[in-house]
């Protein structure tokens, strides 16, 4: 059984590595490599956040502090390497970020982990605000509004790898991402990792089986700080710039969203969340100014209908796949997807017209192009059409969801009878 499982695990990790190696060869558009690099960084960051939220039950509003401080220390270290006063291969810079993240994890962890639940969340928010305030007070270290800029093409090139081209940076990030993923997964399979789950489930009971939940939380937060710092250092290498907003509460909220959308209950959940959120943020923002609104709506829909995140949706379908009933869902899902697409078409049209009138109409007039069609947002017909499409979408989705429910009740019957057999 256990050998079978470790073979499966080896297969999953090998496939992950293969995907990471092949990704920039498949996606060759100009922005793809940059986005893939950001995804790798986001994966490390989101997984490190989930060491707190998903594994230890600590809701932190200040995890970007460790990412940001790791990044700033790395930026100064990189500048010192460039000046010849510090010697370290650029590929090993994440160790500097990790060390900084670890040190601040130890310091702030000592203060915050005596508490759990809401008090912990509030203190983490307080520390995030405090560090953000410090970043304004010490412009020599944090670089003020402009941040700290740096140059990654320093030191000796090893086999002509000098990290000038973005593709080299991607592979550096990919290697670190892969190593960190394995390390963080391995951590879940240790006595500390298991006791972190116990602390998440029931911190009081942990005391009566010999463990101090404060120590468990402290160690998990320190280690999470370490990995967040590594992600911060990679961010510095990737962008050659770090500004104080990367350690602020918005950045902390962002990593929370990634972990939550992906699913905090599964190890791979935050990986999915990091990929999806990074993609949405960079792709969506290319197309529309209203992308933050869409992103917020997406998050809202996830919380309402899939509070366990995307990973929980996958888990939900596993029994159906086991009894080979996934086909039963295909038609109802297709119908629901079509209805949802219609709903979104109406909604997006309305939102874009409002945005156009509010932000652009004064300069370019009220005529706009959307989905390849010209329309005048100052006239009534486009509004009526959009509202009609939206209403039709809502009604059709309600209708389609009946068939989805019927399919699921069939599957539940099949799963139950398979269990009894």
């Amino acid at each position, binding site marked *: 059984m256990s050998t079978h499982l470790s073979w499966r695990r080896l297969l999953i990790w090998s496939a992950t590595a293969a995907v990471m190696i092949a990704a920039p060869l498949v996606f060759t558009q100009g922005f793809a490599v940059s986005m893939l690099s950001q995804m790798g960084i986001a994966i490390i960051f989101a997984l490190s956040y989930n060491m707190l939220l998903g594994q230890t039950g600590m809701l932190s509003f200040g995890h970007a502090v460790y990412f940001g401080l790791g990044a700033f220390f790395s930026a100064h270290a990189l500048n010192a390497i460039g000046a010849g006063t510090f010697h370290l291969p650029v590929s090993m810079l994440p160790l500097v970020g990790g060390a900084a993240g670890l040190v601040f994890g130890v310091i702030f962890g000592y203060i915050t982990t005596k508490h759990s639940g809401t008090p912990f969340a509030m203190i983490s928010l307080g520390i995030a605000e405090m560090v953000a305030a410090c970043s304004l007070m010490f412009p020599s270290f944090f670089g003020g509004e402009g941040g700290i800029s740096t140059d990654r093409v320093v030191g000796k090139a090893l086999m002509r790898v000098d990290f000038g081209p973005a593709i080299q940076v991607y592979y550096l990030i990919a290697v670190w991402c892969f190593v960190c993923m394995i390390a963080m997964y391995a951590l879940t*399979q240790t*006595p500390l990792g298991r006791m972190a789950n116990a602390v998440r489930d029931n911190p009081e009971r942990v005391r*009566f089986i010999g463990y101090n939940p404060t120590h468990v939380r402290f160690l998990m937060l320190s280690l999470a700080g370490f990995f967040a710092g590594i992600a911060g250092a990679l961010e510095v290498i990737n962008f050659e710039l770090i500004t104080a907003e990367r350690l602020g509460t918005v950045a902390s909220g962002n990593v929370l969203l990634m972990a939550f959308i992906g699913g905090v209950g599964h190890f791979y959940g935050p990986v999915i969340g990091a990929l999806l959120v990074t993609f949405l943020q960079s792709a969506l923002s290319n197309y529309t100014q209203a992308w933050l609104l869409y992103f917020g709506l997406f998050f809202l829909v996830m919380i309402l209908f899939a509070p366990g995140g995307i990973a929980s949706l996958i888990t939900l379908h596993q029994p159906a796949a086991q009894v080979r009933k996934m086909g039963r869902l295909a038609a109802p899902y297709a119908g629901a997807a079509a209805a949802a697409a219609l709903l979104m078409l109406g909604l997006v049209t309305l939102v874009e017209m409002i945005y156009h009138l509010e932000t652009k109409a004064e300069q370019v007039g009220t005529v706009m192009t959307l989905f390849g069609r010209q329309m005048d947002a100052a006239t009534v017909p486009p509004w009526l059409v959009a509202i009609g499409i939206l209403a039709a979408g809502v009604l059709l989705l309600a209708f389609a969801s009946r068939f989805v429910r019927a399919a699921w009740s069939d599957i539940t019957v099949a799963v139950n009878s398979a269990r009894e057999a």
Partner: protein
Amino acid sequence: MAASLELTEVHKSFGKTAIINGVDLAVEKGERHAVIGPNGAGKSTLFNLISGRFPVTSGTIRLDGHDITSMQPQQINHRGLSRSFQITNIFPKLSVFENLRCAVLWSLNYKYSFWQRIGGLQDARERADELVGMIGLAKRRDTLAGVLSYAEQRALEIGVTIGGGADVILLDEPTAGMSNSETADAVALIRNVTVGKTLIMVEHDMSVVFGLADRISVLVYGQVIATGTPQEIRGNKAVQEAYLGAEVD
């Protein structure tokens, strides 16, 4: 015989309300000792004081001669005392096996290790599997604790309590809310897992108390009004008046 657990003049007040009013109690090594008393007598509070969940207001508690008064629960646990809870208190999102493996980790000295693979710790796995069998949940080994039936959760609660191999076991109403047959199973389990250990339990079911206990202490209004063998307690006038009433007539 030496006293395993000894309470001297223990007091506990919440604000101005005194719940425990000068309890003296000596539990001998290897005995099964029941604490009975009417609702609100302070039985659960007494357990919370002994196990370190609450600090005492005054008095001393000794475990094997060492002062453990107002130590942290985990420190008391390290000294060989473990307790269960009246309201089931387990790790609901972990499997039965993982619950028990967590319970044995400290006693096997793995502490906060993040450099060992838990799957490779053979002694922890064997001990946890032994416990799974002992509490009769072999078929439920990989089920999440949160979805077990009530009686199964109570059995797991006992398993988690004894997992660390403590010599002194405190069980808080282990059969509360169980049917007759479930109670019989629970009594057999308790008898089985406390062989060679010191057991102190709070229990309302008198058949369980008189069937299991070597000695009984009666707690009324935060004071021990009598301690003795089941026979002595049955015959004690003060106990009859204060508590047992018609039941033993």
